[in-house]
């Protein structure tokens, strides 16, 4: 049972904030960094009003560690940040993964490396989908392309976090965070009261104390833990989402995600009108990556062009997915500029022509 709410004209950042509160968010910990400040600003007023806790932490590091505490209690918790801030949170994200604590982390990606700029970029793909912090771990990564999808996916993110007892990342960018679109709000079924039962810390009554930790010192203990995590990450692989647009008869498949995926869609619409057989494959889950679906397209003899707002990161996963059958060309639109649909015409036509 879901309750459909109003139709609002809001920014992506606000859609994420509203989605999180609709999902039953109890604790938000954050620190200001552009271009995601709308999230802590929205949360500071709306979350306490909804009966939750908002803390502006002293740093991104502290905010991410506050998540460890709240997640250990089995409540729905979240932080948000942008690229340099996410780097600072990675230590805690590694501990969250190692201790199997469910939480949601939003990254509104900006340009890097280093201080970079405050404009959009997809330079954090590697950091998001390959672990990011120390040790062997993965976070589930969801990449919305519209404000509505941002609202919907953040709700799903909390369910996935608890299902897998693992951090889930929403990976957006400055475009998604700052643009306004109509969003239809909805509220999911009431959160299961027993969420976290069996592992969360609530006080040791009539049982021995429970320890949530990532330290495994005795011989073989860490190996066992790592094997368990590996099996869990393999289980996650069954859960993938993607959007396919006009791929059936396409000769060339453009693989692009998030904001770039949506801009490329506009380019494809224009090229289709001109008679070019191009289609879009937009991964929504970046980890796990929808490799099987992409491989199916490769088996149909399609050609591939991966377009990203970076120097080439997701293209490695695209190539891994289709490597036994085909290859993918790459076009990188460098962070520091804002792309328009026109910017992708030439590289797409070039890839089509190189048949």
């Amino acid at each position, binding site marked *: 049972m879901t309750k459909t709410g109003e139709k609002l004209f809001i920014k992506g950042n606000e859609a994420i904030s509203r989605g999180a509160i609709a999902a039953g968010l*109890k*604790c938000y*910990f954050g620190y200001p960094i552009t271009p995601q400040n709308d999230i802590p600003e929205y949360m500071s007023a709306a979350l306490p009003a909804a009966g939750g*806790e908002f*803390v502006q*932490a*002293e*740093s991104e*590091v*502290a*905010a991410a*560690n*506050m*998540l*460890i*505490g*709240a*997640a*250990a*209690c089995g*409540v729905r*918790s979240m932080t948000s940040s942008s690229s340099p801030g996410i780097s600072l949170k990675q*230590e*805690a994200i590694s*501990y969250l993964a190692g*201790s199997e604590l469910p939480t949601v982390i939003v990254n509104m990606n900006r340009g890097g490396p280093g201080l970079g700029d405050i404009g959009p970029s997809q330079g954090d793909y590697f950091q998001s989908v390959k672990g990011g912090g120390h040790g062997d771990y993965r976070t589930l990564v969801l990449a919305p392309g519209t404000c509505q999808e941002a609202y919907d996916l953040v709700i799903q993110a909390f369910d996935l976090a608890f299902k897998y007892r693992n951090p889930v990342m929403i990976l957006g960018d400055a475009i998604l965070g700052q643009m306004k679109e109509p969003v239809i709000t909805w509220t999911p079924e009431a959160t299961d009261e027993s969420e976290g039962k069996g592992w969360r*810390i*609530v*006080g*040791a*009554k009539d049982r*021995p*104390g*429970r*320890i*949530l*930790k*990532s*330290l495994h010192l005795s011989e073989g203990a860490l190996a066992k833990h790592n094997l368990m995590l590996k099996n869990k990450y393999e289980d996650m692989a069954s859960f993938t989402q993607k959007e396919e647009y006009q791929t059936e008869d396409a000769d060339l498949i453009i693989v692009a995600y998030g904001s770039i995926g949506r801009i490329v869609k506009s380019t494809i619409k224009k090229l289709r009108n001109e008679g070019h057989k191009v289609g879009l494959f937009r991964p929504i889950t970046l980890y796990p990556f929808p490799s099987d679906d992409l491989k199916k397209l490769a088996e149909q003899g399609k050609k591939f062009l991966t377009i990203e707002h970076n120097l080439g990161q997701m293209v490695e996963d695209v190539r891994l997915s289709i490597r036994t059958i085909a290859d993918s060309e790459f076009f990188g639109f460098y962070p520091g500029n804002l792309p328009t649909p026109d910017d992708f015409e030439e590289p797409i036509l070039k890839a089509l022509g190189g048949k």
Partner: protein
Amino acid sequence: MSEEKLVFDRADALVDVPTHYCPGCQHGVAQRLAGELLTEMGLTENTLLVTSIGCSVFLYNYLNVDSVEAPHGRAPAVATGVKRARADKFVLSYQGDGDLASIGMAEIMHCANRGENVSIIFVNNTVYGMTGGQMAPTTLVGQKTTTSPAGRNASKEGLPIRMSEIIGQLGGTAYSARVAVNNVKNIRKAKKAMKKAFEVQQKELGFGFIEVLATCPTNWRMDALKANERIEEELIPYFPLGVHKDVTAEVED
């Protein structure tokens, strides 16, 4: 046969296992006091413990309470998250000096300043213990460690930091005190001070902080007795015992 009466027993908050501490180390004393208080104050079932790094981390093996482990220095942030999620629980953390006064300086200052209703026991033995005896922010001037082989040099490495004085200056602190566990008299005082820190949390008055001067015979390269003497002769003169802030007098009157 005359009837025997039990006059002293292990507090039920303490798990009946041998600890991993080196001979003469006073972590065991500090942890025992905490365990006794949890039992005596009826807090055991209601306590959520945040363990930290180094020798302190294994406290989760010695207290029979629910616990979560924090990364190096971040226990006060983790404790903040726990308390904000479960304001009805008693939140206790326990950190060493390298952890709290070096890498975790930001987290402890802001946790105290926000007046989080948590209790933090800070064990100051002037050295990084488990890591192998390196210099800590609390290492005394002239003290030799594995990273200050000629002794701490104030002109290059600064002076040892007095944490309970600093914490006592912050607006959110309800109670801050320094104690030692080097003799029976001081142990009794330490327990009283720890109790006070726990009580301010129960009364939701703000942040409670107890600094415990303790020995580390292994890394001090001393036997247990000499290490205990060092507390009296070197540590207490630089880190004076006493209460640096206590808001309860104003509130209770």
